[in-house]
Structure formats: C-alpha cells, structure tokens
C-alpha cells in the first residue's frame, strides 16, 4: 500500500469510527434519557398481568377501529402513564351491540373492577384530551391484558389486584 493510500485509509477509518461512536453514544443516551428512573429501579415490583377471564368488568372505551394497526397507532400514552390497551371487540360479551360495532373490530379500552376506578381513568383521559365512554358491567373473555390492577382496592390500602367478592358491590 502506498503511503498516500495508507493516509487516506487511516483518515477514512478515523472519520467512520468517529461517526459511529457519536451515533452509538447519542442512541444510548437518548434511550436512557427517555426512560423514567422507575423503570430501572430493581426494588420496584412488577405488576402481574391479570387477564380477568370470565369476570364482569367496567370498560372505558376510547375508540373503535376496523383494523388493529389503526387502533395500535391511536393508543397513545397519557404523559408517562399507560393510556388505553388494544383488544378485539369480541373479547367482551355484548360490547359489539353496546357500541354498534362489529365483533371483528378493535377497541381502545381499559378495564376496571370498580366504577370509581373507571371514572378516575375517564377523568384522566378527558384531561389528556382523549375520548372516554363508560360501559356497564360486561363479561370479559380474558384474551389479552386490558389493564386490571390499576385502581384502588375498596379497603383503601393499595391497588385492587383480585376479583371483588360476590355481592361486595362496586
């Protein structure tokens, strides 16, 4: 290799390596900066995904879509908070009739065991400028996770993580 070629190759390698380093650093920094510290706190418990199969639940609905990708695209967070989840209308018995939708449609939805939990979420959705419709109790097939565990337990000690005893009211 001639001396000129060696110099050119060295310069090219230097520039390419530098650019790669800058990009990698920016990417790493960007990702790290965008995550709230809670996500990396090892002491923070992870909430189990409670499907609530067979339970009667209050649903807050934020929209109905023909196609799942459209629903996924519309499911925005409310700041750092989890917004709606995406589920098939068919997951909830009679929801198609309640909404005037097809069973093959998809909904933006969050489910609750108590009406007060549902209403608190409606207030959040409204403050975030998103639509929110409360349904009566509807039976859930439990196909996908739709947000259970995100409401206060009636005893006021923490989140409600299991079905309410029959007849306890909601």
């Amino acid at each position, binding site marked *: 290799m001639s001396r000129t070629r060696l110099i050119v190759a060295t310069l090219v390698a230097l520039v390419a390596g530098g650019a790669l380093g800058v990009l990698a650093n920016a990417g790493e920094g960007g990702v790290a900066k965008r995550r709230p510290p809670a996500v990396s706190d090892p002491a923070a418990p992870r909430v189990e995904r409670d499907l609530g199969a067979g339970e009667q639940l209050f649903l807050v609905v934020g929209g109905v879509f023909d196609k799942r990708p459209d629903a996924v695209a519309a499911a925005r967070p409310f700041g750092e908070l989890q917004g709606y989840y995406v589920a098939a209308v068919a997951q909830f018995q009679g929801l198609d009739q309640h909404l005037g939708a097809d069973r093959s449609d998809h909904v933006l939805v969050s489910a609750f065991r108590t009406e007060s*939990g549902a209403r608190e979420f409606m207030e959040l959705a409204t403050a975030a400028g998103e639509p929110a419709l409360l349904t009566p109790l509807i039976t859930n097939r439990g196909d996908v996770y739709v947000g259970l565990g995100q409401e206060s337990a009636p005893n006021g000690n923490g989140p409600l993580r299991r079905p309410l005893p029959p007849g306890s009211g909601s």
Partner: protein
Amino acid sequence: MIEAVSVLLRRAPALVVAVAFLVGVLAGPAMAGHWTQRGWRDHHKQYPPRPSGYSQIVQTFGQPCNDNARKIAMQWRAADNGVYYTVRFHRKLGGRKTEMVSDKGGASTNLDNDVHGHIRDEHLGGHTLSGIWGYNCRLIAGTNTYSTHAWGIAVDVSSAYDVNGQCYSVENKHHADIWRSHGWKWGNAWCDPMHFQYATDY
C-alpha cells in the same frame, strides 16, 4: 413631607394629581393578583422527606393507590383553555389550612399553598396550560411498574405543550425552579417536561 405635599397641592394641584395617577397606573397591575396582597405566604410547613427509590417511597407514602394518595384535591386553571382541572395528591403534600387553602385534612403546605401560591404570586399561571393531572392509579406506559402518580406524588402540567419524549420545555421551564425549591424533581431530566414528582431515582 406633609408640609411639602400641601405646598405642592396649593401651588400645583394638577401636578400632584397627575403624579398620583401615574403611580396608580404603574403600581396597580403589579399589585393586583399578587397573592401576597391577599394574605398569601409560603409557609413551608411539615414537608415530608423526599424519598429516593421505590422502598423509600413506600416507607414515606405507603402502597401505591392507597386512600391517602388521592386524599387532597385542588382545582388548577389552565391558562390556554380556561378549564379547571382537578388535581388529586397525597395528604402529606398539602391540604393543611393556610390563608389561601381551606382545611382539607392534609399534613403540609407544600403543593396547594406553597408551590401553587408561588406560581400565582409570581404571575406565572400563564405558563400552566391544558392537560393537568395528579393522582392516578396507573402503570408507566408500556411497563408493569407503577408510576409516581399512583402515590399522588406526581403532577403533570401543560401536557399538551411540554409533551413526554420532548427533551426541552416550552412552558414549564418558567416555573420549574419553584417546584425544585419545594422538593420536586422535574421530569425534563428524562425528556418528560410535563412531569414533576416528589421523589428521586424512581
């Protein structure tokens, strides 16, 4: 002094009236709306220690979504749409009786009297815009970890403008120092400029 004014009044009454009018014009707007003129002051009473990490948050504020986390409520007006948003928060962060806050059974003067009062007193309410909320028993989006909102120790302000993921602030930068000086951590550090929380490392 009084003698001088009375001499002036006799010799040039129009001048005295004009000066008085000018003082009124200049001072009036500056004084009006100052909460201090209505009796407000920063009490800085009974602030809880600011926790670091999950374990200290639970130690200080209890389990997520407990009753105390949403015990106190205040109305916060957004300057852009005039809507009064209900902000709920932990009883250790406010609800104590002051000149401007009724007794809500809270323990401290932090959020409703001191932080909000400073923002009002310094005429910075024009930078608290739509999309304001506090307590919500909710996970951090896309995770299975409770947000600081689930303890009522986080407030999102101007969420329609200082959106999550934006690594700069348009509105909240005008009052972020007030939050900081009362123990709150600003989410702008992790590109969430709408978010203020009374905890670190979580």
